[in-house]
């Protein structure tokens, strides 16, 4: 968890609002992946990023390798967005992902 630091550790959102999650890296991250783990434990891919930004529906993510951070923005939060969001970084050695400890998100009606 020290190599990939996620913040906040937990977040409670009103349905329909926006929020942002952040990861800071103390390793030389070359790519970043974001996942959502649902209450049943399944990890779902959200984004695979090289430096730059990607958008998918209400989610948008950015990765800045020079400043060593990545963000995930949730727009118009829905109940099904609840779960634990993980970011994971790959360094130049390749293939191995280092995960953060996650951000628990609860979307309230």
């Amino acid at each position, binding site marked *: *968890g020290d190599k990939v630091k996620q913040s906040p550790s937990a977040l409670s959102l009103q349905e329909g609002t926006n929020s942002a999650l952040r990861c800071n890296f103390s390793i030389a991250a070359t790519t970043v992946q974001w996942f959502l783990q649902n209450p049943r434990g399944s990890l779902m891919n959200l984004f695979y990023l090289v430096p730059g930004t990607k958008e998918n529906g209400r989610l948008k993510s950015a990765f800045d390798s020079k400043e060593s951070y990545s963000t995930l923005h949730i727009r118009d939060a829905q109940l099904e967005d609840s779960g634990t969001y993980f970011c994971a970084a790959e360094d130049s050695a390749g293939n191995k*992902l*280092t*995960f953060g400890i996650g951000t628990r998100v609860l979307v309230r009606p």
Partner: protein
Amino acid sequence: EAGVTQSPRYAVLQEGQAVSFWCDPISGHDTLYWYQQPRDQGPQLLVYFRDEAVIDNSQLPSDRFSAVRPKGTNSTLKIQSAKQGDTATYLCASSPRDYNQDTQYFGPGTRLLVL
């Protein structure tokens, strides 16, 4: 396309017992990973294979854990003489040989409780 499958989904053991976990990756994916996810933590890589070869097992407790992928497809992770500290979810993931996007796809995991 079928996803990564794992079995069993749950296992409960007494300390000292052995257990094996099985993983079937997505067809055509050459790289297979095993992760351990303790409660309230992120997944931590144990070992990964490319085809049948172990690429990195530096985080695998070699005295009690072993992993094989003999034909470069399915894989088995085995724990000999389980300890309470092994209680965790064990996740398998696979990824294709795609140098532009090495996304990992995860299975549902096996939840292990060691009493």
